[in-house]
């Protein structure tokens, strides 16, 4: 484009306004995170004095020491990590094994099952009947309750199925002529060729598990099994910070300020997301495109 024609005085004013506005927007988006990270390292004195905004003058790791020595918080981090890893594997197993048969045009019953999947996106039993099913299965207070009820996202299933369908049929035929069974085709041909897609969905499922609060709220009442998100709510929103096991702690340990503990727990809950964010970003634009393909 001819940039000379852009440079009218009004255009320049607009440009300045535009850059400033978007710059402010960008800053406003990340500022809260930076503030929280900064404050999680602050000492009591500096917090009460408010002698800094983003970067404290004296760095103190006591809030993190506290978190990682408090068995309740530490355990909930462990639970979250376990659920994220195991839950994602469950998701992938269920989604991939179902998507492959549904992608095959010679699969008798495919239409019925596809309609079953699509209808479940439109209508559901709702919170209470689902809760009663989970309870009836004896899954309350079990980690399975955090992994099984959401094992397949119908939307993801359809996207994966469509991806499988787009594969050149010649590959599968060749494998079949070489003596591959259906299982062999899936394991040796289809899955290896779908690695990038599988990685993308694994990432999105994993983020979902790490962030999941609702299932734990509904199904897990035993506080020993709470994932980090539930613990976070207890500590920050309900202010039960010292989720009490001071007995196990070094008597010389000075309890860090409550504010810092809250901030540090928020940081711990956010960091994994920020770590995978660059990978997510690489994929989500593509994901939005994939989603526009109809089932």
């Amino acid at each position: 484009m001819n940039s000379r024609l852009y440079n009218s005085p009004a255009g320049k004013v607009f440009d300045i306004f535009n850059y400033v506005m978007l710059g402010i927007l960008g800053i406003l988006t990340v500022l809260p995170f930076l503030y929280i990270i900064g404050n999680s390292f602050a000492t009591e004195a500096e917090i009460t004095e408010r002698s800094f905004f983003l970067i404290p003058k004296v760095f103190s790791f006591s809030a993190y020491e506290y978190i990682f020595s408090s068995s309740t918080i530490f355990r909930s981090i462990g639970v979250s990590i376990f659920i994220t890893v195991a839950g994602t594997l469950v998701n992938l197993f269920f989604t991939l094994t179902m998507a492959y048969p549904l992608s095959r045009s010679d699969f008798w019953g495919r239409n019925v099952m596809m309609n079953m999947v699509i209808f479940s996106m439109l209508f559901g039993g709702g919170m209470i009947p689902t809760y009663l099913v989970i309870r009836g299965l004896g899954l309350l207070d079990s980690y399975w309750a955090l992994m099984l009820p959401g094992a397949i996202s119908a939307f993801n299933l359809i996207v994966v199925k469509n991806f499988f369908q787009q594969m050149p049929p010649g590959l599968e035929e060749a494998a079949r002529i070489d003596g591959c069974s259906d299982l062999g085709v899936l394991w040796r041909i289809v899955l290896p060729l779908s690695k990038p897609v599988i990685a993308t969905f694994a990432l999105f499922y994993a983020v979902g598990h790490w962030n999941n609060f609702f299932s734990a709220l509904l199904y897990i009442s035993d506080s020993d099994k709470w994932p980090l998100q539930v613990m976070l709510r207890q500590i920050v929103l309900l202010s039960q910070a010292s989720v009490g096991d001071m007995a196990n702690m070094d008597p010389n340990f000075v309890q860090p300020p409550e504010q810092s503990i809250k901030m540090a727990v928020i940081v711990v809950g956010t960091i994994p997301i920020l770590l995978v964010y660059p990978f997510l970003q690489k994929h989500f634009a593509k994901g939005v495109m994939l989603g526009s393909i109809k089932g």
Partner: protein
Amino acid sequence: MMNGKTDWNTNTTATAQADMATRPMRRESNWKRQIKRNKWLYVLVLPGFLYFVIFKYLPMWGIVIAFQDYQPFLGIRESNWVGLENFTNFFSNPDFFRLLRNTLVLALYDLIFFFPAPIIIALLLNEIRVAFFKRTIQTLVYVPHFVSMVIIASITYVFLTPQGGVLYDLIAWITGKPIDVLSSPGSFRPLIIVQMMWKEMGWGTIIFLAALAGVDTEQYEASIVDGAGRLRRMWHITLPAIRTTIVILLILRLGNFLDTGFEQIYLMTNSLNRDVADVFDTYVYTVGITQGAFSYSTAVGLFKSVVGIILVLGSNKLAKKFGHPGIY
């Protein structure tokens, strides 16, 4: 795994498939044969199939307790049928209008304040010609979308708490009087909308930016030659390019008008703002899970999903009228 026998079998599969293709429906009735031929596919599909049956369709059957006086120790079979009693109880309960009001007002706020935000940002981003700046801003504003609602609520809390929250102090300093935004009923809805905007408004731009990427730059060049200024180009070229997207998203939004995010409302509710905060979903949780009124709360949930499904189907029809393929 791949022995001679399977080899032979799959070869016949291939010829059978060819047969099916040239002479369709020849052995349509012989479904047992098909299942046998594709037995591994059925083994593969089984876990997923069971998942949908157990976790999606069993609960749908469980909805019948909305028409019962369900007692957990009696089960669905033995519990008494009460017809529409749970529904009439709900509609005659003052809670019903409170919930309806809260849901509708919140949805309306969302439509007026949240909905246009991504469009405006997308338009502004589209005018940026320094690619690096544009990419950086995009990278920043997408971040909160991936952060959990608990984190968002926690950050809000830490900033607004009367015990040293920096925003709380700032508001007090500006207005001259301290306002406890977290617990005053009047600020609940604005707070929810602002949270929503902070979390999702950047992410919402993606779909508009995708639509804008398809605009032919020649149109801009032609309009420049014709002497159109910045705003005119925005108004006559950029905006029409995303008009269909806007209409479709608006219609889809109407489809889930009643869906106010459970987690967000639940996390931001406290005893002081409960009156304006309660929506259908949080009410179902409180009455059903914490108070154990299973039948009544299932009826409330059913009411909400039936209205929801009517809205979705209606808006989908509307979308098709506007030439969009629709979602179903």
